[in-house]
């Protein structure tokens, strides 16, 4: 077995007596392995004290948990949200929050951020409370530090100031935040600067060996690390000729008249792209943004599921809108429609939604036949019960129509199946917040792996590793030359273990790629 110098240095740094160790960890370089090994080694040396591992996602939590299971309670692995929420719950009266802080955070926009802000105030003003936590957690391992907010970071350092040793893993090239509007260069730079400063405060090391590709394609792994360096330092990603084993470049043009809303290709372009989906072990297709993912899904005739990950934007929006609707049938109806548009296809404003909304305005009084009668039937459900329970019932009725391939909904299909089903469970409790909490909690324990053949946004693929990955389309709109899009490209490139296919455009190529491989034949 070859000994990798950087691995050895990182392992030694983690086990050193330094109170603060900062590890720069590119994707696929054995970060989880290093972290889990360290936890296993250090836990037995802490006497009664413990290791606290803070992750950002439940997927990462489960991953590390499975690798440190032998340590029992000595290693506690939590998402940073749940850790902060637990502290905030204990002091909810002091923080002016209701007893169920998690529910409050989920059901209010920016709720978790506000909980973190208030908890930070608590721990900064009452350092002895932070001390009590530091007495429990001798070591805190912070995963994906780049995703840590200012307040979350300050909370971790409150414990550090009271004696918890800190081991921080992060990658400034994976600052892509959650789904949402693109981030500006200064916004990205601020977090990069924070990382640089952090490295200066303690002992800093970096991982640089592409372990993830050892069994798949080592050449691909090496190329991805080179690409990362290029994207980090402002230069371009080289596609050499020949391409490294495992990397394929295809060219395709979106021939649609409405390229934002639809993806279409010539038969010649389409064939090789389509073929990639049939490879052994399946393929995860990555697109930038929700609309692109929808377009890609349509491109394959909605045969392949969309990977929904752990977040549910449309459902969260639905809950917020319903709470604001105040029992108004038209407002509840509007919330219902927005949710259905986001999670299904074939049920649009022009095909159904406008008629549905009008029924609610008219009070469902006019006599209807055929398709309008079905739409009225759906509207009547909301009319009778203009709240979350009515919405659940209406979603169930709509789903039943779709499953029966009813003539009223000829081409309709649910695209975000899990999100749609979760919304149908909103009726479980009289209290919508309670229902939403139960739904969110049950999701925590669900599957964290996408199906073999599926489609995902780059954001939702962050943290995943898949055998084969195809990124499409690598055009200027998806991957412009900004600090943010450079990182988005890096996250996309670093997902595959064996093969990566980039679908490039001839007409509007991304400015981030160069080299002979990027030139259309």
């Amino acid at each position, binding site marked *: 077995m070859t000994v990798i110098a950087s691995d050895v240095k990182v392992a030694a740094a983690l086990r050193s007596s330094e109170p603060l160790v900062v590890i720069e960890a590119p994707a696929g370089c054995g970060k989880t392995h290093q972290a889990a090994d360290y936890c296993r080694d250090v836990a037995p040396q802490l006497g009664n004290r413990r290791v606290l591992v803070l992750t950002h996602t439940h997927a990462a939590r489960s991953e590390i948990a499975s690798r440190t299971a032998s340590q029992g309670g000595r290693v506690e692995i939590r998402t940073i949200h749940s850790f902060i929420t637990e*502290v905030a719950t204990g002091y909810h009266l*002091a923080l002016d929050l209701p007893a169920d802080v998690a529910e409050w955070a989920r059901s209010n926009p920016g709720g978790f951020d506000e909980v973190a802000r208030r908890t930070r*105030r608590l721990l900064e*003003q009452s350092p002895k409370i932070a001390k009590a936590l530091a*007495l429990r957690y001798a070591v805190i391992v912070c995963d994906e530090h780049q995703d840590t907010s200012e307040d979350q970071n300050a909370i971790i350092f409150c414990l550090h100031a009271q004696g918890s040793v800190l081991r921080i893993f992060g990658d400034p090239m994976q600052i892509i935040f959650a789904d949402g509007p693109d981030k500006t260069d200064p916004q990205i730079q601020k977090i990069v600067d924070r990382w640089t400063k952090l490295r200066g405060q303690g002992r800093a090391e970096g991982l640089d060996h592409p372990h993830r590709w050892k069994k798949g394609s080592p050449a691909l792994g090496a190329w991805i690390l080179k690409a990362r360096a290029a994207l980090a330092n402002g230069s371009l990603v080289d596609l050499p000729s020949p391409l490294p084993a495992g990397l394929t470049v295809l060219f395709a043009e979106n021939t649609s008249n409405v390229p934002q809303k639809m993806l279409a290709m010539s038969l010649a372009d389409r064939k090789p792209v389509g073929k990639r989906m049939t490879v052994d072990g399946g393929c995860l297709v990555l697109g930038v943004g929700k609309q692109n993912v929808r377009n890609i899904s349509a491109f394959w005739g909605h045969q392949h599921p969309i990977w929904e990950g752990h977040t549910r934007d449309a459902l969260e929006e639905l809950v917020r809108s319903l709470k604001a609707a105040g029992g108004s049938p038209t407002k509840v109806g509007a919330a219902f429609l927005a949710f259905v548009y986001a999670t299904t296809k074939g049920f649009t404003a022009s095909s159904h939604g406008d008629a549905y909304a009008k029924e609610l305005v008219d009070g469902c009084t006019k006599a209807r036949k055929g398709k309008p009668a079905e739409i009225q039937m759906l509207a009547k459900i909301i009319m009778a019960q203009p709240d979350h329970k009515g919405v659940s019932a209406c979603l169930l009725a709509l789903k039943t129509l779709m499953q029966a391939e009813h003539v009223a909904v000829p081409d309709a299909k649910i695209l975000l199946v899990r999100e749609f089903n979760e919304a149908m469970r909103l009726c479980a409790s009289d209290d919508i917040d309670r229902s939403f909490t139960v739904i969110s909690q049950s999701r925590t324990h669900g599957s964290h792996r996408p199906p073999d053949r599926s489609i995902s946004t780059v954001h939702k693929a962050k943290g995943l590793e898949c055998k084969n990955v195809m990124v499409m389309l690598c055009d200027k709109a998806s991957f412009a030359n900004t600090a943010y899009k450079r990182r988005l490209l890096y996250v996309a490139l670093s997902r595959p273990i064996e093969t990566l296919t980039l679908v490039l455009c001839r007409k509007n190529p991304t400015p981030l790629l160069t080299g002979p491989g990027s030139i259309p034949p």
Partner: protein
Amino acid sequence: MAGQPEIRRLKIERFRGLQSLDWRPSSGVNLIVGGGDTGKSTVLEAIALLFSPVGNVGVQETDYFDRETDAEFMIEATIRAPADMELEAKATQALLPWEWKDASATMPEVDLTGGAAPVSALETVYVVRARGTEGIEVIWEIVQPDRSVASFPPGLRRLFGIVRLSGDDRNDRDLRLVHGSALDRLVSKPNFKAQVSQQIAQFDLALDVEQTDALKRLADDLEKRGLPRGDRLGLTSGQGISIGSLIGLMAQKNGTSLPLASWGAGTRRMASLAVASQMDAKFRITLIDEIERGLEPYRLRDLADDLLSEEGQAFITTHSSVALNAFASASLHYMDTKSTLAQLERAKVQNHQAAHPETFLARVAIIGEGDTEVGFLTVLLEKALSKSPRKLGFHLSSGGGDDKMLPLLQAISATGLVCAALCDNDDKSPGLWAAVKVLMKDTLLQWENGCIEENVIAHVPDADLWDLLADPDGATGDRARTIADRLGVVSKDRADIEAACAAKGTTLRAVILAAATGKKDSAPDEAAKKAWAKHPQKWFKSVDGGAELANKLFTMNLWPNIESTMLPFFNALRHLAGDLPLKPGDIS
């Protein structure tokens, strides 16, 4: 310094005879006194249960107040846990501390605005409790600031290192391998008792032929009846008795090995403490019920010295004045008949505790300002009460002078210790005296003006004044001398003294009062000042003097003059004794 765990506040609801108790113990040794059946021992038992090192504590319906098991009992302590106790690390879930403010566990105050905010310097504490449920079982919990609970398992409770000597006769528990006893905690390892059982089971009982035959006949019969064939004798566990309880510490006495449990009570208790002190426990909370039990004063004082020199908190009940004296530097807490437990402020009672410990063990503590008042009251109480004060549990002591009286009464009247007092009025701190009077009501008799001598002598008719000079033996010399000195005359003859009074423009009454109270302002020089200050000793400033003064009330028929002032005081005491009030003229 490591520091020791400390109970800052103890709340008990509906546990045994205690309906409700809310008490703030002190650091170090807490000495608890109070009448019988007030619940002192129950407080100790509550603490022992709260920190019980074992899980299977048998509670009974008698552990519930009024035997009413429908309502839960609760024992809740606010505790300070030193960092090296590692309570935070050992707990099954993260413990969230409270802040200790205004002698209570409180929620931190957080400034939620964005600006700079002060950093809290308050200490942090945890709240732990044991609840007796309606199902007659005990649940131990740590109460988080949001009132949710974390478990408080035996492993955590054991950290507090409870060492307990109970007052009952089963106090050899810690000298046996009873589950959770000091000896058990000292020597037991996992499976230790199972090993012991196994070894004993293998013991050869050396049955003779006859016995073996009898067993065989039984076995054959059992088999014939289709029952399991039992054909040998072995160890079987009994109900209510464990193998551990049969194994105890042995010692050599006159060449024979004897269980320590068979020694006298005092030795057993001291040995139990010795076993506990050997335990490898860094932290300790000591509970000793009736510390004096079986111990001679010298052993009791040794034990007190040991406990006072230790760092940990201790809770000790006693009915012994030797213990009170030996623990004069401990905090003293009084449990009254309403089961209210309150501290007697240490600085204010410490001296009195050492000098007159029985004060704090009496049913009613009667405190005279000085020896004069003690002598005075001794005579009058015999007349005013139907039984002798001692038989009533009334204890009379001297408060030790005017400066000490007010603080002492302040401290005592803040607790439930029933107290009566006779005091001078120097017109100092009238507001503070008034506050004490509100609490003590008629049991406090403070002269409207001046001291006891002034209040009595004022009523002596001019013609009888010279009679005051005669001491109980009839001699007038000593007292006449003090008068003559003050008047600057050599002769102590009545005529010369009266002439000198006239010449100086004063009265005999004034000079007697000055001498009896030791006035020295007009003394000609320092030497005279010193001498004049000692004049009261020739008069009434002693227990005998006070008694003499009291007797003079009747021989000189002065009593009617002060009866109206004193009768409410004596009637208050009669009330405490269960006697009906006296009317004017009843005392003669």
